[in-house]
């Protein structure tokens, strides 16, 4: 920063701002990765999830998620017949070690629901950040700037999906990055890499050849809490009305 008083006196504030943005330069990206050519989301097929917890363990290993915190987790729903509004939900250790089978009850339906950040196009968590430490990238991934985050936890409260937490070791907000360090290098996320049944599929919504488009045209798909108009990009197939 070599800005003398003389320089500054010659500049008007507006000029100073445009000069600064000139100085900023492009970020260091993986070679050949062009942010504006992608728009990332996820397809979660509940009819394929077996609740093995592979995704939860893989995420923790890939992203050094502290014990007891989860960037992705699996919930087990138990729904009695048409009693949708009152399901029993459990997620022991986020499903990391699987789910011990519960005694069968007549008339009760059980299924697993993998959960993670919805990388909302209009995310509440981004809107509430007072300093711009959380943001959506041009390729549609909601990230946290750990150098900039104050740890005020507004975003943790704002997320309607419960996908954020306060990381006690970094003392900043923490969340799923959609393995941004992987997908920008042409790899899939750790959770998708480890999922044995294909219940999770990383999806590039801007890529017309991504299988998600054919899937969406031929299947009924839902997002969670659509009435909040968050622009959630985790698309669920075979979602039951009991899931919130």
């Amino acid at each position, binding site marked *: 920063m070599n800005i003398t008083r003389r320089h500054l006196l010659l500049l008007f504030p507006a000029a100073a701002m445009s000069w*600064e943005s000139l100085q900023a330069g492009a970020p*260091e*990206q993986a070679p050949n990765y062009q942010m504006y050519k992608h728009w990332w989301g996820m397809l979660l097929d509940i009819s394929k999830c077996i609740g093995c917890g592979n995704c939860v363990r893989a995420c923790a290993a890939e992203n050094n998620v502290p014990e007891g915190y989860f960037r992705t987790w699996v919930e*087990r729903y138990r729904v009695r017949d048409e009693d949708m509004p009152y399901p029993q939900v459990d997620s022991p250790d986020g499903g990391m070690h699987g*789910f011990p089978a519960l005694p069968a009850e007549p008339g009760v339906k059980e*299924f697993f629901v993998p959960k993670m950040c919805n990388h909302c196009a209009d995310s509440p968590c981004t809107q509430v950040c007072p300093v711009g430490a959380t*943001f959506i990238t041009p390729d549609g991934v909601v990230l946290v700037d750990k150098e900039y985050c104050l740890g005020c936890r507004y975003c943790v409260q704002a997320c309607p999906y419960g996908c954020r937490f306060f990381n006690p070791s970094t003392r900043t907000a923490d969340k799923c990055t959609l393995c941004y*360090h992987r997908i920008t290098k042409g*790899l899939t996320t750790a959770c998708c890499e480890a999922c044995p049944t294909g219940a999770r599929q990383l999806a590039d919504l801007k890529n017309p050849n991504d299988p998600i488009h054919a899937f969406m045209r031929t299947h009924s798909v839902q997002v969670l809490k659509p009435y909040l108009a968050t622009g959630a990009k985790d698309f669920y197939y075979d979602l039951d009305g009991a899931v919130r």
Partner: protein
Amino acid sequence: MKPFGEAGHLLRVALVYALGVALFLIVRAILVPHSFGEFGYYRGRAIAQVAALPMHFAGHQACRSCHADVVALKRSGVHAGLHCEACHGPQAAHVANPAAVRPVLPRVATLCIRCHAYNPARPHSFPQIVVKQHDPGGLACNTCHQPHSPLQGFGKKT
């Protein structure tokens, strides 16, 4: 002769104002990161910093160059859809340095039942066993099943 006539006091006020603007710009230039505002109301370089984080899972494309035989065997059987690291765990370190970092073999006793133990919450069409009935003798799964192609030799799709 005074250049501004009687307006000399106005000049002094203007100078104080200009100094204030200068101070604001100096402080702002020091405090606001360079890349702030590049893509939006955030520090643009943060994207690259997240993108530069280290990987632990190598990705399924990495295995074949050395383990083509196992990948081919797996591809021929019902585990074709599984990626290697789904069972073997993150192996980026092994891929980076195959000689020095040797993967630990997964413990079959806990590995297989993680997916295949009967659980009423699992999709009914997914192959599941009640361990005590399927294997009363307590044998390891790979006594009968080749883990990379578990139905091989069972008269079904191998």
